[in-house]
């Protein structure tokens, strides 16, 4: 559907200022265009997601078959093969595929390097020290280099300005800097594998005293975090100013697509919650490099020797500063996902979302509450019952807005004309999966039941349900959904459906057993999966089940990778509004959107974001910028 063509002064402005042709490097590499930056974030984040996934699969070998020789080439070969396929699937000319293909090959090379090292795999058998590196880096990479850059950096950057009718972000140069600082953070994290002692190995939570005395990799982890946090800070300022200041005429706050509200609240979380972790990182760097004792208590004994530092510090300080960020961080992981799902559900039910106002107020309330629940991660640290009760209460309260949002999305399905395309399948699966994830959180939020479940596999099962078949499914949904906007082509439906069903089944076989193992008391971060514990024996068999499910899920991702990179050039061509959607990103832009300025004619908004099946209208969707 073509946008209305009115002759507007802005049309001239668009062409007057930018008449010079940019060089290849300024156009595609050091670009200030939010769409290019969004794609850069997207590809980089997808690569990191795959790398984090690889690390997990390596860990799962050890968990399924403790002490068995690691079959390195079975892990490397598929990735290297994928790299070659992606490189050549649409010809040899330099493109996104070139970058992605080379990254895949580099990933295989990294794993080959790590797997061949006698320091990690003497006689091919994984050492606990290496297992711990995999554990810490899996978490770090997935959270900070994968999910958030994809959910916020990629989707937020690409879609949000289009949805609000803006020509770009408020600070395009700052946007470019955000990406490259993120990239440097990623490189720093990867470099940590090549120093003596390998990468960080004290968990993604890096608790002292262990992390204080850990190998060099931890210092590099801290430097990497400084980069990533700085990138995030610059990005969040940009997002908030853009949403507040650059909305098109007529686009009031309560007419914003819920996706934009989700990004707005998320940006506030990133802005205000990250700095304490930056401070903590600086403090730990001081501890490791300058001999201070911010986190080291007096008289600490390691391997029979008293440590020589001054003492007077407390590991609890790190925990407070870390979780002050890390709790809002999990809402950073889920809010953009809820935003994506909302757009897809409204579009594929052909009716407005139920309870738009509830969604908005719930999201705002959720964001606010997320700052005052953090010590539910610290119930076992000896806090008194009063303060524990406080955090338990706020944690129970915070489940309310989550339930409101989930309920609104489920009720939105009622009476809809549901189109079961691939994005919608992922969106529908998100609902019960996030439901399981949320419900399993309740016993953790209650301090008494948390006594039994803290630091067990139950916790891992809980948060993975929310992030993996939760957020990551939403991100897949978003990729299938917005792919036509970015490329003018659709991804293949058959491959998409295979990808969906395979992933959906496998996800549950990976994470449900974790809940069972956790209830049996199996601790997390055990190098041998609980083999040495009597209480774990009855549930040990599940380790192999989960590992096989993980490897099978990897195979199903091949369908996605091939589909994605092939469809960029060879996918079915579609119109500008491929899904017949109402929001400005679809109804007022071309596919792909204009190189700069985004809009042929700057839209003016006259109605809400989800006017589907409005009685009396010609079509079953009425674009936001349509007047009558």
């Amino acid at each position, binding site marked *: 559907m073509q946008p209305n063509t009115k002759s507007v002064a802005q049309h001239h402005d668009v062409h007057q200022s930018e008449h010079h042709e940019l060089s290849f490097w300024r156009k595609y590499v050091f670009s200030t265009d939010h769409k290019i930056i969004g794609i850069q974030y997207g590809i980089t984040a997808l690569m990191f997601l795959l790398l984090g996934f690889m690390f997990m699969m390596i860990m799962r070998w050890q968990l399924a078959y403790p002490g068995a020789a690691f079959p390195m080439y079975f892990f490397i070969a598929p990735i290297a093969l994928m790299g070659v396929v992606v490189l050549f699937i649409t010809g040899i000319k330099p493109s996104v595929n070139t970058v992605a293909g080379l990254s895949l090959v580099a990933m295989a090379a990294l794993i080959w390097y790590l797997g061949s090292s006698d320091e990690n795999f003497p006689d091919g058998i994984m050492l606990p020290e290496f297992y711990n590196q995999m554990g810490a880096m899996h978490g770090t990479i997935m959270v900070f280099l994968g999910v958030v850059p994809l959910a916020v950096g990629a989707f937020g950057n690409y879609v949000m300005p289009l949805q609000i009718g803006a020509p770009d972000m408020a600070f395009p140069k700052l946007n470019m800097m955000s990406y490259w600082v993120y990239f440097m953070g990623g490189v720093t994290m990867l470099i940590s594998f090549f120093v003596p002692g390998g990468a960080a190995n004290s968990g993604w939570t890096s608790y002292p005293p262990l992390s204080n005395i850990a190998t060099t990799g931890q210092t590099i982890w801290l430097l990497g975090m400084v980069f990533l946090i700085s990138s995030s800070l610059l990005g969040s300022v940009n997002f908030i100013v853009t949403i507040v200041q650059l909305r098109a005429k007529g686009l009031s706050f309560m007419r914003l697509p819920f996706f934009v509200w989700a990004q707005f609240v998320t940006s506030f979380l990133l802005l205000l919650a990250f700095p304490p972790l930056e401070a903590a990182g600086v403090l730990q760097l001081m501890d490791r490099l300058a001999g201070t004792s911010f986190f080291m208590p007096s008289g600490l004994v390691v391997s029979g020797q008293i440590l020589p530092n001054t003492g007077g510090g407390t590991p609890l*300080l790190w925990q407070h500063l870390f979780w002050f960020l890390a709790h809002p961080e999990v809402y950073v992981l889920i809010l953009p996902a809820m935003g994506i799902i909302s757009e897809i559900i409204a579009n594929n039910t052909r009716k407005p979302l139920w309870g738009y106002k509830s969604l908005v107020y719930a999201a705002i309330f959720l964001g606010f509450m997320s*700052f005052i629940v953090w010590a539910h991660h610290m119930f076992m640290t000896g806090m008194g019952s009063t303060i524990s009760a406080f955090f338990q209460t706020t944690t129970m309260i915070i489940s309310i807005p989550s339930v409101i949002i989930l309920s609104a999305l489920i009720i939105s399905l009622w009476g809809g004309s549901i189109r079961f395309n691939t994005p919608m399948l992922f969106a529908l699966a998100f609902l019960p999966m996030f439901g399981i994830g949320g419900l399993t959180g309740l016993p953790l939020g209650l301090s008494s039941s948390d006594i039994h479940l803290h630091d067990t596999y139950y916790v891992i099962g809980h948060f993975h349900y929310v992030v993996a078949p939760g957020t990551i499914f939403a991100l897949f949904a978003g990729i299938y959904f917005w792919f036509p906007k970015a490329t003018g082509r659709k991804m293949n439906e058959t491959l998409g459906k295979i990808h969906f069903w395979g992933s959906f089944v496998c996800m549950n076989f990976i994470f449900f057993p974790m809940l069972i193992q956790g209830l049996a008391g199996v601790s997390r971060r055990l190098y041998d999966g609980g083999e040495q514990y009597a209480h774990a024996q009855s549930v040990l068999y599940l380790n192999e089940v989960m590992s096989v499910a993980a490897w099978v899920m990897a195979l199903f991702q091949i369908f996605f990778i091939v589909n994605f990179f092939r469809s960029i050039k060879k996918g079915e061509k579609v119109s500008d509004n491929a899904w017949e959607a109402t929001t400005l990103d679809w109804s007022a832009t071309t596919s792909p959107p204009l190189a700069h300025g985004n809009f042929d004619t700057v839209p003016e908004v006259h109605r809400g974001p989800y006017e589907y099946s409005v009685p009396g209208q010609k079509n079953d969707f009425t674009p936001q910028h349509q007047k009558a």
Partner: protein
Amino acid sequence: MSSHSPEEIKKHVKIYITVFAALMVLTFVTVAVSYLHLSIFYTVLVALVIATVKGSLVASYFMHLISEKKMIYWALLLTVVFFIFLMFVPILTSSDPIIYRN
């Protein structure tokens, strides 16, 4: 950008000089008070009160916060709430431990 006339700016300049003088006086007051060796409670209270007054002067007049827009106030209010939480809750968690540590 707000369009102030030169006369308005001159008025502002008078305010800046006044605030500067106040800040100087308060600086010397806060140092002088520290030599009085009050109890720890009053030392902290007086020092923080004076610092807050000084900070408010800088924020209100040098940073023009006193005539700023609602949008800015909301963002800052949110920040202050979380700041207070971050400042005081960790102490509360250690003030009433399950295991009494001497």
